[in-house]
């Protein structure tokens, strides 16, 4: 039997009839020396007739004799499950959560006291591989370049280049290639920079883990953890591998990043049910989550690709990444222009043939006309507009990973957002405290809490009860101070400590004065915690409906307190009751209620409101329970239906699913797969969907959305890797800034493309008209010159115009609307005819040179008329359009340049043609500007 330790040995085929078996051995590929060694070693086995190992295919063929003992071995091997024969990247799912700790320890051959030995850990690391997730491969340089070059406009240009080369017109060919190269270089540079930035962020995230090996505590790099390692965790630890808890002291983990559950989940050692869902496996700690409070030990059971995070990552990889709409729309436009160019070229060619012109000359002119039909400036214009938008967004902390995303942002119609950590801060904050004033509760807003001033007459009278309430809360809490001075623990308890500090209490002094001796933790039925302290003090803290009845309160006061609790809970607050007593006393002394809230992020409500004004509907997707989600929606002023995840299948299968989805504002209790289903359903119904999230559980939906947005620099690695846009600031208003930029790109692109299409149409009409009249006005090189000069630079100038202030005051452009609609095409036809008419008139009066000068000048002046209303003239516009006009003027006025472009005529005629061409559109531009100015002045007068 041939077996190479540590390598993948896979049985490719075994046929007993022919007594042949073929193995795949990964290490064999490209290693002839190993192939010979394998042949030598295997041939010595009894019963083996021949062995052929191939270093090319990486396979070994063994032929054996009838009745050879090796046949039985091979048969057995063939019957083994594939997971054994071919070690899989991820192990088969195990039910570690349902097994007793002793069984886990025995199965993993480790110790709950001393952990693994260093030697064993090294051996396991070699056998199982590093504890790293398979990263999504960054696109290679070639792929990046290919993505910039491989589009229809460039393919059409490539075809034109080829024909030019075949005709020997290398100058024309070089000019076209230069434009394509410039476009690809810009796109490549920007995308590469974005990938580098994200790679740098990822590299900064590799951590370390505390483990016990050979009985001693040591810190190892997280990628070196192996199954069987004994992890030591405490509040604040980020878990680096999936692990089974074997020792827990008030241990709770924050699993929001994995399951979406915002409250810490208590962890214990007692096995849970085999079929318990991920969020309820209380015996497990999962990679990517963090320990919220307490401390404990856990045995690593899965690393790298076998962890739960990796499974979610696979789900993210399987989700479909939609193709950018800009690409589709540009392709549609390019095809349309290509067909019209082809028809025009064919028409002109037929007309020329009727006039018995030289066929080679006709082909050359047809190519020129074909090129004229393609706006060469289109790719570079689109790229530059998108790059400009990306750069502007980056200045505001919005990293856009793909060029096309910058445009897609402008078309968003629905924004799905995760709640915890995206809409809210994932950080509890004390909002109100309630004290008993006689028999009725008195609520105090947390904003009114502050330390007593030095000149306060009787601080105890004003702050006594509040200070007692918060001091009790602090003493009862399981908060640790990290070396950095930060607090580690559940966000609820951190909030209590912070509030205590605000009223002038020092938690460390309190703990030194009343050190804790014992803690009676909550269980499934008992939803409060009792702590015993020095000086005979006991404190109780927990669910009001259980704590309040234990307190010494008369029935009226008790009812009033419970009513107060209901009111606070109805407002979406998390409420805890706190009491204290002397050890040995029967009843508890009621101290008060504390009400906490996971606050909305600053600007979340404004962002939701502004999104609605911009025609973008917001849907909250959350793993939280319905009441919490409803309260958050109320705070965010989001109106609409609230449903739960389990209602989704029925809703999505319904006939009126689209209409019902349009009414939904909140979907509570959703799993990662539900989020993907919602996003895909919305897309199916024609919406352009943005998904904003920060956790690992958001990654699949981020991938499936048209625009995936990772919120905040602290969003998980997986979310950032999957997203199209990364917001450095966790502020949803940034999304609207990005939307405004996307809309500016759409507007500018539409104006620029309209300009280029009208110009090219003018050129086509002029050339075709001349051909019909049996004339050849402008040669192929001249047409290309006009086309390059009037497309690229003025097109760029229009595409890079500043954004309009009112972009977020109008609804998004319909996703399926073509870049140019019917009205736009009518304008293109009218303006193209005007350009051709002016140039044709110049040709009749002054000959080819006048036509050549006029057709350029008309388009430069037309660019000024195409500018957006209410925008001041920018230096960039003046430089680009003015520069192009100057170049054209130079070309028509100078004899050698005319000779190079093969245009005949004199300078005075050229100058006259130039002036004639420019005057008409300039007049229109001036009139529009003047009208706007008059309207502006009159509206100013009306307001004053």
């Amino acid at each position, binding site marked *: 039997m041939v077996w190479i330790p540590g390598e993948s040995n896979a049985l490719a*085929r075994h046929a007993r009839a*022919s007594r042949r078996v*073929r193995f795949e051995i990964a290490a064999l590929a490209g290693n002839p020396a190993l192939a010979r060694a394998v042949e030598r070693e295997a041939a010595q086995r009894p019963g083996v007739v021949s062995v052929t190992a191939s270093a090319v295919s990486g396979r070994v063929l063994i032929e054996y004799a009838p009745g050879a003992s090796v046949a039985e071995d091979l048969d057995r091997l063939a019957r083994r499950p594939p997971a054994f024969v071919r070690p899989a990247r991820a192990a088969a799912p195990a039910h570690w959560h349902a097994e007793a700790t002793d069984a886990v320890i025995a199965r993993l051959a480790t110790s709950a006291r001393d952990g693994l030995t260093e030697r064993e850990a090294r051996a396991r690391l070699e056998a199982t591989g590093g504890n790293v997730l398979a990263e999504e491969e960054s696109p*290679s*340089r*070639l792929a990046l370049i290919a993505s910039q070059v491989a589009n229809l406009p460039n393919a059409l240009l490539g075809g034109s280049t080829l024909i030019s080369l075949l005709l020997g017109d290398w100058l024309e060919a070089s000019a076209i290639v230069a434009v394509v190269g410039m476009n690809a270089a810009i796109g490549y540079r920007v995308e590469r920079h974005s990938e580098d930035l994200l790679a740098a962020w990822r590299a900064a995230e590799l951590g370390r883990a505390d483990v016990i090996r050979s009985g001693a505590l040591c810190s190892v790099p997280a990628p070196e953890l192996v199954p069987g390692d004994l992890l030591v965790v405490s509040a604040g630890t980020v878990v680096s591998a999936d692990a089974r808890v074997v020792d827990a002291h008030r241990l709770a983990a924050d699993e929001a990043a994995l399951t979406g559950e915002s409250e810490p989940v208590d962890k214990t050692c007692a096995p849970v049910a085999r079929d318990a869902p991920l969020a309820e496996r209380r015996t497990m700690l999962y990679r990517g989550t963090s320990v919220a409070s307490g401390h404990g030990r856990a045995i690593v059971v899965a690393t790298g690709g076998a962890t739960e995070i990796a499974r979610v990552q696979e789900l993210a990889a399987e989700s479909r990444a939609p193709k950018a709409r800009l690409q589709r729309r540009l392709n549609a436009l390019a095809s349309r222009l290509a067909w019209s160019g082809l028809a025009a070229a064919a028409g002109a060619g037929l007309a020329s043939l009727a006039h018995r012109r030289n066929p080679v000359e006709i082909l050359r002119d047809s190519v020129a006309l074909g090129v004229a039909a393609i706006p060469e400036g289109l790719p570079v214009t689109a790229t530059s507009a998108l790059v400009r938008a990306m750069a502007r967004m980056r200045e505001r902390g919005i990293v856009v990973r793909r060029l096309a995303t910058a445009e897609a942002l402008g078309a968003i119609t629905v924004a799905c957002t995760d709640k915890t950590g995206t809409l809210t801060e994932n950080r509890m904050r004390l909002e109100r405290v309630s004290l008993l004033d006689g028999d009725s509760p008195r609520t105090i807003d947390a904003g009114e809490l502050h330390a007593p001033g030095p000149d306060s007459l009787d601080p105890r009278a004003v702050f006594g009860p509040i200070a007692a309430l918060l001091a009790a809360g602090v003493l009862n809490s399981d908060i640790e101070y990290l070396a950095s001075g930060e607090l580690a623990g559940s966000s609820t308890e951190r909030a209590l400590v912070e509030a205590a500090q605000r009223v002038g209490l020092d938690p460390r002094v309190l703990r030194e004065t009343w050190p804790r001796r014992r803690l009676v933790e909550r269980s499934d039925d008992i939803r409060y915690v009792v702590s015993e302290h020095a000086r005979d003090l006991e404190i109780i803290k927990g669910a009001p409906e259980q704590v309040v009845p234990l307190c010494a309160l008369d029935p009226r006061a008790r009812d009033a307190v419970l009513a107060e609790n209901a009111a606070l809970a109805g407002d979406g607050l998390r409420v805890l009751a706190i009491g204290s007593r002397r050890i040995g006393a029967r009843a508890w002394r009621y101290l008060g209620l504390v009400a906490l809230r996971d606050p909305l992020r600053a600007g979340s409500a404004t962002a939701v409101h502004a999104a609605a004004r911009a025609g973008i509907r917001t849907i909250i997707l959350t793993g939280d329970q319905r009441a919490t989600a409803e309260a958050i929606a109320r705070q965010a002023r989001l109106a609409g239906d609230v449903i739960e995840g389990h209602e989704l299948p029925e809703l999505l299968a319904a006939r009126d699913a689209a209409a019902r989805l349009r009414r939904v504002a909140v979907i509570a209790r959703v799993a990662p797969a539900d989020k993907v289903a919602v996003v895909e359903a919305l897309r199916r119904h024609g919406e352009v969907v943005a998904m904003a999230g920060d956790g690992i559980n958001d990654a699949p939906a981020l991938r499936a959305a048209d625009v995936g947005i990772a919120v905040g620099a602290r969003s998980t690695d997986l979310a950032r890797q999957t997203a199209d846009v990364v917001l450095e600031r966790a502020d949803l208003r940034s999304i609207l800034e990005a939307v405004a930029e996307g809309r500016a790109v759409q507007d500018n692109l539409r104006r620029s493309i309209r300009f280029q299409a009208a110009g090219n149409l003018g050129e086509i009409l002029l050339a075709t008209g001349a051909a019909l009249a049996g004339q050849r006005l402008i040669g192929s090189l001249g047409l290309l010159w006009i086309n390059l000069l009037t497309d690229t630079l003025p097109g760029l100038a229009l595409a890079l115009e500043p954004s309009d202030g009112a972009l977020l005051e109008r609804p998004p452009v319909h996703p399926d609307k073509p870049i140019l609609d019917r009205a736009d095409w009518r304008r293109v036809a009218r303006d193209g005819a005007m350009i051709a008419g002016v140039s044709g008139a110049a040709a009749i009066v002054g000959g080819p040179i006048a036509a050549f000068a006029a057709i350029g000048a008309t388009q430069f002046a037309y660019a000024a008329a195409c500018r957006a209303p209410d925008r001041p003239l920018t230096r960039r516009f003046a430089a680009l359009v003015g520069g192009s006009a100057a170049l054209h003027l130079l070309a028509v006025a100078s004899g050698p340049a005319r000779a*190079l472009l093969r245009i005949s005529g004199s300078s005075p005629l050229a100058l006259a043609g130039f002036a004639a061409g420019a005057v008409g559109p300039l007049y229109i531009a001036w009139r529009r500007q003047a009208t706007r100015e008059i309207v502006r002045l009159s509206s100013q007068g009306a307001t004053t």
Partner: protein
Amino acid sequence: MRFHLPSFLLGAVVGASGAALAPRLRPVAVELATGCYKLLDAALVKLARGREDVSDLLAEARARARTLAPARAAAGGAS
């Protein structure tokens, strides 16, 4: 041969750009060549495995036809 200014200028520009861009283009060239080699290796592996698969198929068919079928026939005749 006549001196042609535009050709000369174009040549000079192309030469200068080539010299300036050469260091930046090297990684792209390396990646391009690596891709070609990978493609070639993958094609060779496919070819070799294809040949092996055909050889396995023929060997099994031959064995069934010449060994198993006569044996079955003999067993059938005996019963």
